[in-house]
């Protein structure tokens, strides 16, 4: 078995620490945008990375393969590619395969071999049962399982992403150069996220960049999670092994567990990761009080403690979330059907000079943009919405305050 840890964590730290810039944009009406703006936004936050990692996730880019899992895979050697392809043929029906187009870009060197495959698991019978034979595998589970096999047992191969009609593009370099390298300006997506990385660990490995992805979930993240040890130990009980030692991996797995396996709504998941304080829970009316108490009792080990701002995306949804005491920045902006999320306000204003409003996302309150539904959660505290400071943060157009209640604010969006 390949030890990913050796590649991503050569100094054997408890976990890999990185600070970052993050950006996300979604057209909630489903309109497509090229990757040009997101590249520009990342270039604007150049100083948040140090050239040791950048990446993007794009949703809706493969309309011609809507039902096939799109595997983005990097290979360090031709042999790794041959070995992986043999395995893929055994496991999947491969609808199409091709190299991921790239262009020569200054600042990007030593690129691995990059391919994408559009696959479907073979007939149900062909899916081998789990060792205890008890659990029926869904196609999703099967894909997750096979991706883990490739990542951990084929030397020199690593799967960037494995969702449908989406893909992750990432590598070593400044984010904007990575974007140019992957010709992202030529893709059309309704949802883009981007990440530039400032790792304190100098090892540069293409697979180690963000977004981190499992199925069509992607996570870009800025922060350090002090509860990492607790989170990891909890996830291990549910069969997730954090082989890359990053906070981001923990968030991705925890999201997969809570949403896909436990069926929790994403707005509830946000309240697990950034749980309300007990002093606030105690003041809630019933049944909220009981619900939030139960969430902390049962999922307390998945509380992400420490500074973080994160953009989680999957098919049809983009979620922004900050730690519960506002230690890392996250700004939201909106204009018409567009929802922006970023570490700073500047890139939003750069790519959308006529943005209608921008606001600071409040710790522990998720911003949720949903396809065809718009901004379903604005990311400000509902209970405090009548209090001044909160409204103050929610600027109106040209700095005017024009929204005075949550319902008004929602209507305005």
């Amino acid at each position: 078995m390949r030890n990913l840890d050796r590649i991503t964590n050569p100094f054997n730290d408890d976990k890999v620490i990185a600070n970052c810039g993050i950006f996300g944009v979604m057209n909630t009406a489903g309109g497509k945008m090229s990757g040009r703006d997101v590249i520009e936004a990342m270039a604007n936050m150049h100083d948040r990375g140090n050239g040791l990692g950048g990446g993007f996730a794009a949703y809706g880019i493969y309309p011609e393969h809507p039902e096939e899992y799109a595997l983005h895979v990097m290979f360090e050697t031709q042999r790794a590619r041959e070995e992986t392809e043999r395995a893929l043929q055994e496991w999947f029906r491969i609808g199409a395969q091709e190299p991921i187009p790239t262009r020569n870009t200054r600042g990007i060197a030593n690129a691995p071999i990059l391919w994408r495959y559009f696959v479907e698991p073979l007939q149900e019978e062909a899916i081998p049962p789990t060792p205890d034979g008890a659990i029926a595998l869904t196609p999703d589970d099967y894909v997750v399982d096979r991706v883990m096999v490739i990542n951990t047992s084929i030397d020199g191969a690593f799967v960037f992403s494995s969702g449908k009609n989406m893909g992750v593009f990432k590598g070593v370099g400044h984010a904007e150069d990575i974007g140019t390298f992957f010709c992202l300006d030529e893709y059309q997506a309704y949802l883009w996220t981007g990440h530039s990385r400032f790792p304190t660990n100098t090892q540069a490995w293409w697979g180690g960049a963000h977004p981190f992805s499992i199925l069509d979930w992607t996570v870009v993240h800025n922060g350090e999670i002090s509860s990492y040890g607790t989170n990891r130990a909890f996830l291990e009980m549910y069969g997730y092994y954090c082989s890359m030692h990053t906070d981001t991996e923990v968030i991705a797995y925890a999201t997969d567990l809570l949403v896909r396996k436990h069926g929790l709504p994403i707005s509830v998941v946000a309240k697990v990761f950034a749980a309300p304080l007990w002093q606030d829970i105690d003041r809630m009316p019933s049944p909220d009080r009981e619900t939030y108490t139960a969430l902390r009792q049962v999922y307390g080990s998945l509380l992400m403690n420490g500074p973080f701002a994160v953009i989680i995306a999957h098919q049809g949804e983009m979620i922004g979330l900050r730690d519960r005491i506002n230690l890392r920045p996250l700004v939201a902006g909106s204009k018409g059907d567009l929802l922006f999320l970023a570490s700073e306000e500047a890139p939003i204003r750069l790519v959308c000079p006529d943005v209608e409003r921008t606001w600071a996302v409040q710790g522990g309150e998720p911003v949720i943009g949903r396809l065809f539904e718009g901004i379903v959660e604005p990311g400000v505290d509902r209970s405090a919405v009548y209090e001044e400071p909160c409204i103050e943060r929610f600027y109106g157009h040209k700095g005017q305050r024009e929204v005075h209640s949550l319902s008004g604010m929602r209507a305005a969006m």
Partner: protein
Amino acid sequence: MRQCSFDVHAYDEEDDAIVSADDRCVGCQRCATYCPTGAITIRLSERDFRLNANWRPEHLMDIKRQAETGGVILTGMGNDKPYRIYWDHLLLNASQVTNPSIDPLREPMELRTFLGAKPDRLRFADGRLLTELAPQVRLEMPILFSAMSYGAITYNAQLALMQAAEECGTLCNTGEGGWPRDFRRFGKNVIVQCASGRFGVDFDYLNQAAVVEIKIGQGAKPGIGGHLPGEKVTPLVAETRMIPVGTDALSPAPQHDIYSIEDLSTLIYALKEATNYEKPVSVKIAAVHNAPAIASGIARAGADIIAIDGVRGGTGAAPKVIRDNVGIPIELALAAVDRRLRREGIRNRVSLVAAGGFRSSADVIKAIALGADAVYIGTAALVAMGCTLCQQCYTGKCAWGITSADPVLAKRLNPDIATRRLVNLVKAWSLEIKEMLGGMGINAIESVRGNRLHLRGVGLEEWELETLGVRGAG
């Protein structure tokens, strides 16, 4: 002179002088503390035995005493032998640069803890919670008062513990010696024990309490029962324990209805039936060699809480040879049990409470990082009330009114002052835990639970680090 309950001081009328029988002194410091002129100093008296690394004075004295009496040597309090104390070899982490530390004076810092079985997942439908949780008890800080029974400790001492538990928002354990009627008003803050002697156990006893604990064993005397001498069985003690006045209160070594894990399960469910499934049921065991396997069995047998008491746990009375030689340190047992339950995927099903010699808030937070949900403190609570660890609890002569049998001595403990001191201790430790959490950049205790990455070992061997699941420092 009257302060000494061990008859050290006497007044010699002829010489008009105070004489001291030095060899009777147990070093309880009562006389020195209360001497109005500060004239008394208690010093370790040098024995004149010839130095010998193998035959130390303790061995010679014990042999001589046994040669005289032919009996088992009794003692009180916890193991005083220099077995390795792992807390002293574990160091905590703090944030620098990449992660801001949090100031507990300015930011909320959460210590609230719930004991009880947790489900593996919650279910929601239309944003409504469907899952019903097993009963949970709420603690405002992860510190509880250990089992100390009425009879072993005085009425006032138990009263102080219950009042303090109520004021702090935590729990206090009655021990196995029953629960005096007029203490039942503290029910919300009380754990009652159901031990091999079943003293005082009835329907009301079980239902008035917050938690019912089945006591299998105790760190200071794993594998053996209890013995409260008849002299200590006063009318109130007798009523509380439901036994005749003046008879010895003997609890058998095993629970005679528990000879196997199935039997334990039967008792757990009998208690749950009796309490209408409204109370968590805890099972307390001494930390012994195969604690992980036993704990796994207890979790599967249906317990909501497992309490593990390490080799340094205190006692009112225990055979010295047992206290000093049986059991393993809580640090190793706790780490091994937590790991085993996680490997088996059943850690959520039970809360883990660690006990046995917690001396400071640092020990507490280290235990939580090793996987405990909360810790029991017993000896530390007694020290807060005045105990000086003279180890004479079994004599009933406690000079501080804590474990005294003599009603005159027992009056020495003012329950309100003792309550205040206990509350102060728990508050002080809570503040210190908050400081340490803040330093790590964490603002909720659950984010340290089982978080061994915040611990580093120093001066430990490879196998010890492995058992603790902790990396060496550096």
